[in-house]
Each structure stands twice: as structure tokens, then as C-alpha cells.
């Protein structure tokens, strides 16, 4: 993966498993974390193909 730098802190972003929650469910997703300010980012692919799709499917059942 290329190097990414935090816009605010100018520090290099770390590849980390980020803690994410949906309702009471906790899961880890690989993403980018800034060691300075704690800003976290997910890849576009992850968001569109996994999170958004999954959320939509569940919301459709509500």
C-alpha cells in the first residue's frame, strides 16, 4: 500500500485494525490510523462493498 499522511498532523498513517461498532456488534476492519490525532480512515472498497451494502441489506429488513 502507498504511504498516506495525515492532513492535520502531517504524520505517516499506520495500517491498523480499527475497532468499529454497529448497534452492539463490534468488529475489526483493517484501515489507516493517524498516531498523532487519531483520525481513522477506511478504504473506499471496504466502505462501498462491505459496510454500505451490508447496512442497506439490514436496513431494508427493518
Amino acid at each position, binding site marked *: 500500500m502507498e504511504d498516506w499522511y495525515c492532513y492535520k498532523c502531517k504524520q505517516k498513517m499506520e495500517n491498523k485494525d480499527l475497532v468499529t461498532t454497529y*448497534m452492539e456488534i463490534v*468488529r475489526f476492519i483493517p484501515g489507516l490510523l493517524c498516531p498523532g490525532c487519531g483520525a481513522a480512515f477506511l478504504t473506499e472498497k471496504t466502505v462501498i462493498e462491505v*459496510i454500505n451494502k451490508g447496512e442497506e*441489506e*439490514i436496513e431494508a429488513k*427493518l
Partner: protein
Amino acid sequence: MEESLGETLSLCPQCLARIPARKVVEDGDVYLDKHCPVHGSFRTLIWRGDRLYREWGSGEVNSKLIKRRLTPTVSGCPYDCGLCPNHKGETCTTLMEVTGRCDMSCPVCFASSNSNLKDEPGLSEVEEMYRTILEASGPCPVQLSGGEPTVRDDLPDIIALGKEMGFKHIQINTHGLRLARDKEYLHRLREVGADLIYLQFDGISNDVYRYTRGANLFKLKLQAIENCAEFRIGVILVPTLIPNINDHQIGDIVRFAKGQIPVVKGIHFQPISYFGRYPGTPVNEDRITIPDVLKTLEVQTEGEVKMNHFVPRRRKDSHCGFSAFYVLMEDGRLQSTTNFERRQSPLAGSGFVKESPAEHVRRFIHERAKFVESDAQEGENNPGSWESFFNRARTHYLSISGMPFQDVWTVDLERLQGCCIHVVTQYKKLIPFCAFYLSSASGERLYYEGKVSSQVAYVS
């Protein structure tokens, strides 16, 4: 000390005249209080626990208007149903009575069956009814009902016809006995694309069925579910809840349903309402209200199901019904995906709902009923990933919902005006569910053969 929560309109249980009514709080419970100039005062418990009632608020979800009104407003609600221009609930499901016959004689049935062979709509009349729905509301989900629809050997033809005419989702409301006994019939239903079985299911032991249905039916219900699993057609369990008869089995029903996922897709609780002839007024002890069901669910599942998982129906009157959605996790636990505090959809931003509530419910019904294959997906093998969770959610889920029908004591015309479940009749009308089945204390139906009964007094 009594406190008023608002004014509305209702009907006199004796003469079905329209009379003013108030929702009042007394000793922490909510009552509907009304007065008929001829027959006196009536007070009925509608909700135990006023705090939740207030929290659930007034609803006020604005639904899109119905495509076409089939009757004008003349005498005012509820005497002009068809639907009339005052109706504010777009159709989310239409009920079609395909027969008046039933081979059971259940004491608690809301649809009393008393017609013989000749009153049954033929296929051409069924087509007319489908057409009426298309004209008024477009191709919404349809629930075939009765009487007992499976007494008709040509039920598969009725379904095939609906599919041909553009109805994408057709459910069958049934006691399921024929589905248990006649696999070939079930197979035909599946072949023509029946989407979901709405299975009458009062409990997990025969003493319950003996009381509610007059026969020991549990084994047959199990067989029906087993056969539905074999033919891959989803089932919603529909218990009629009666105080002291089966409300002690609410938790058991949830546990039973869990064990039957994925053929069972949900449970839809129907707290008892009083139709047909009824001596006197049902007392508080005869009533099981929404908060009673939610509380009992939490207690009897030891917190696996919690009261705050439930969200009110998105209807004009938010106290009309409740629902929650769960994913059955690998460890056997029900994981909720709904929560009252966070009931706004994350996708919706700040209050903006992308589609009308009825469209949403229509899509929900369609989505929820699909019998989905458990297929492998990348990342799914990692139990800690979102992929695995969403994958699980696709196939192993359970919806828990409920709706108490209005009877002549509890009927609230404001709630009726927002009703989205419409019954189509042979007389080219759509009539809201609770208006259609409503009957006076002496058993006189408000609507009979598509018209308001001549016995009704029109008092404003």
C-alpha cells in the same frame, strides 16, 4: 387523577355511531374514553404504562398519497371506505379474501366464516380484485386470506394470476394444516411462486391449541413448518396472544423460532382483539397491550430480547404496532440490529427518509421473505469481520413484530385513517383492515358485502 393525552374520534360499541373520544391516563395506564348520547360511556384499556406511550410520540410520519381514491367522502370516517380522500395511509399490503370457508371452527377467529360454495370468487372475480388493487395502489404485496385459503384447490392458480399481473410478493395467511398433510399442494404453491406463509401459531403445546383452536394442532404445525423448509418457502409464525392462555409461552415461541431459522423468518404477535358478538365490555384483564408483550419478551428471554430493541411502526399512529430485527449469531444468541434510541436510519442522515414509509414496508416485506442461499464470500471465514456478520445477517435472521387489531372498543379513527393494510373486496373497494373486520358488541359488522351495514346510526 386523570390526564388527557389528546382528543380523537371513535365508534359506539352498540350502534357504531361516530362519537368523540379522549385518550386519558389513569393510574399510569392509558385508556380510550368515549361517550355515546344514546348508549352511554365506554372506557377501555389501550396501553399499560403511559411513559412508553409518550416516548413513542405521535407518529406523524407523512406517507405518500394513495394513487387513486375509489370512493368519495360523504358521511365521513369510517363510513366511506373505498378508500376515501381522507385516508392518509398508502397501501403497504393488501389482503384478499379468496374464500369464506374454513375447515376449522376456532373460537378466536377474527374472520367468521359463514358462506357456502356459491359465494366464492371465481378466477375472473379474483382478476377484478387484483385490478382494483392495481388501480388504487399499484402492485403492492398481497396476502391471500379468508376463511382458510388452502380449502381452494385452485389457490396456485390465484397466485399464478397475481404474479402474471405484476404482483411481486404474494403471501398466504393460513392455519397450515393442508401444508402439513398435502406436500403435493405445497409443492404447487411453491412452483407458482408463493413467497411467504403467514402461519397461525399460538404456542408450543397442545393445551394452548385446544383452547384457541379447539384441537390438538401442535404436531401438524411442526409438520407444516418442516414441509415448508423442504420446499424452501419462508414462514412467519403468527400467535394470537390471549392473557393467561399463551402469554406464558412468549419466550418459548421465540426459542422455538430461533431453532427453526432459516425457514422461520419472523414472529408476528397479534394481541387478542374482540370481534363478533361479545357480552358486555372486555375488562382490563382481557387485554394484552403492546408494552405487556414487550415486557414479557424481555423477561421470558432473560434479556436476550430487550424492550428498547423495539421501534414503533412508522405510521400515522405510532402506537399501532412494533418491530425489531435480529441476526442469529453463530453462538446461538440473537443480536439486535434495531434500537429505539437510534431508530433513525444511519443512511437517512438527520430525519430525511429516502422513500415513503409504505414503499419502505413494501420493500421490507419483499426483502424479508426471500429465501436466500448461504453462499461463501471473501472474508467470510474470518469470524471477526463485517463480511461474516453481514453474510450471516443475509440468511440467519428473525424479525419480531406485533400489531393489536382495533376492535369496536379500542378503535381510534385517527389510527384508522393511517392504516396501511387494506382489504380488497369484490365490490371494487379497498377497506382498511380494522374497519373491514370491525363489528359491534352484538356482532353486527360495520362493513358487510362492501357496504356499511344499514343498522349503523350516523351520528356526528
